[in-house]
């Protein structure tokens, strides 16, 4: 089962094959360092979660985005404070960009009372409109129409809000993807959809999901612009997302951004991804988005090794505290299960 759906060689100018220069960016030093911190935080939060999972502390499954951090972080970094984010289960990095604290995520995964859902739902299934976050449901594709409607509504209210959400290669085959994209196009909703093309939907390669190579091609059916980027180049993702956000804000309607990337772990923690050919994995390991961005910062003189080391150390200290806080926090009281489907008193 070779993945015929996408090329394993050079993806675009700017990707690994040209001495690994990242895409040009308008971001200054400080912002780039902030980006780096988020990428590191994303990875390290997930490393902690893996450890907690192995210790049996995670309730249910764990879904890693290792290798895809740049698509989450780079895209969410293009949003302003009044914008909306609709993350999927692997977009932990996007949540961090929106200011979600690691302890909230640890508590979610460990089903604690102090988690954003108070233990009613798990993993990244939580939202908070105060931080511009809409919670997904598991059914893939469903967020697209919802975010399209949210974006349209905000615009109707005279707000400048742009909504950004995600879809996997697998998710683009759902009816909701189609209905949502088409509706967004018709309404000219200020919506940005990041299609994370990691080549696999669970164990199913893109070639068994569709007969096109690029997800961007799906945009033709809706008459909306699309852009393809190297999803492992955080600056490329940020650039494309920013252009799409700007277009949306200016009234130009929705954009589909395809980010080619790779899921460096299994679908979930229990999955060893034995179905992924070794060659494919190796190609992508050489394109690790963190390593590449780190190399870029150092090569461009935007940061020094000690500075980056300090960032990592700061993160580790924060995570030590957050893991401890989460671990020592209580499970919810049983009554929390009951009621609450309608507004109280109704």
């Amino acid at each position: 089962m070779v993945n015929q759906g996408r090329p394993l060689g050079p993806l675009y100018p700017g990707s690994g094959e040209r001495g690994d220069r990242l895409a040009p960016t308008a971001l200054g030093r400080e912002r780039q360092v902030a980006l780096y911190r988020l990428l590191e935080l994303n990875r390290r939060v997930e490393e902690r979660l893996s450890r907690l999972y192995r210790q049996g502390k995670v309730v249910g499954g764990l879904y890693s985005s290792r290798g895809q951090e740049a698509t989450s972080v780079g895209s969410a970094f293009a949003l302003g404070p009044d914008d909306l984010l609709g993350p999927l289960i692997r977009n932990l990095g996007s949540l961090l960009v929106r200011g979600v604290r690691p302890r909230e995520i640890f508590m979610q995964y460990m089903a604690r009372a102090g988690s954003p859902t108070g233990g009613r739902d798990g993993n990244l299934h939580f939202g908070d409109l105060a931080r511009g976050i809409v919670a997904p449901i598991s059914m893939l594709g469903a967020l697209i129409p919802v975010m399209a409607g949210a974006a349209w509504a905000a615009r109707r209210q005279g707000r400048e809000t742009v909504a950004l959400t995600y879809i996997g290669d697998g998710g683009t085959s759902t009816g909701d993807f189609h209905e949502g994209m088409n509706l967004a196009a018709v309404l000219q909703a200020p919506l940005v959809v990041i299609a994370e093309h990691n080549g696999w939907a669970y164990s199913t390669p893109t070639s068994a999901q569709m007969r096109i190579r690029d997800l961007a091609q799906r945009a033709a059916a809706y008459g909306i612009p699309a852009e393809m980027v190297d999803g492992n180049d955080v600056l490329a993702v940020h650039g494309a997302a920013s252009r799409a956000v700007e277009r949306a804000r200016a009234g130009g309607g929705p954009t589909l951004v395809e980010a080619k990337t790779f899921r460096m772990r299994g679908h979930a923690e229990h999955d060893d991804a034995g179905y992924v050919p070794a060659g494919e994995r190796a190609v992508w390991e050489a394109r690790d988005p963190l390593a590449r961005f780190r190399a870029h910062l150092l090569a461009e003189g935007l940061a020094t090794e000690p500075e980056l080391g300090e960032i990592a150390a700061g993160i580790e200290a924060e995570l030590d505290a957050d893991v401890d806080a989460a671990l020592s926090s209580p499970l919810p009281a049983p009554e929390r299960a009951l009621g609450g489907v309608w507004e109280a008193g109704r």
Partner: protein
Amino acid sequence: MSGEATYLEAVRRALWDELEADPRVVLLGEDIGRYGGAFRVTAGMLERFGPDRVVDTPISESGFVGAAIGAAMMGLRPVVEFQFVDFAANAWNMIVNFAATCRYRWGQGVPLVLRGPSGGGVHGSAFHSGCPEGFFCHVPGLKVVAPATAEDAYGLLRAAVRDPDPVLFLEHKFLYRRVHGTLPEGGSFARLGEARLARSGRHLTVVTWAAMLHVALEAAAALAGEGIELEVIDLRTLQPLDEEAVLASVRRTSRALVLSEEPVTGSFAGEVAARIAEAAFPFLDAPVARLCCPDTPVPYSPPLEEVYLPNAAKVVARVRELLAF
């Protein structure tokens, strides 16, 4: 607006009045704009309120229900029209798993009304005649309303639009132009979740809603001549159910028949019957019975649909059996 109106007109006025009263109210659906909707419920609204508030959508029920969910989260009060409520089937996942679960899972209200014509009696066949309340009343987090009168069509729709949670509002197309009522002058609305005593009686309680209310009242009138007094309860809101009103009546009459226009197996009538049978057991002088439709799709040809639907004669016959118990 107020005054004498058909059920259809009552729905129309409720929407109109809510559009006037609250700029957050928006309508979405197929052909609801210039055309005014397949049943003309939204006639004139595009002209009055503009294309930002009366939105013709592509044929994509899941898509536009989803969009309405997103819009509701952002503070609008979307009212979605299904051209026929049967097409809500295409938005099933969006309604059941998205709209209905957000408050419980992450505390986010989704004030949204999903409305459209349901019900048979007009030879619409399998896909234009459905009464889907049995499905939707099993969805935690969704409210379900099914008015039987023009007054309630008006008052409960306005209440539904103002409700902070998702409401499925089942209009009955057989009633659209067949029943009339006087709409209230002022601004006081019905509340969701309250049944109505449609007729008092002491021999047996018929619990029903929507078009079947009129069948029950017809049967009650027929039996009254023989001194048999049916008490008729119009549930109006199915979810949440006004269980107390039902039980109070059955405790008095000691007999109950649940009458609905659903295939019997898995019907909401079954839920009501089960609750009565459990909670009013010591008061019962006869089994709690159901009169519903057979377990088939709604057939098309008039003689077939007649067999399929409950009517007053069938109610009378069943009541006699229960009274003889």
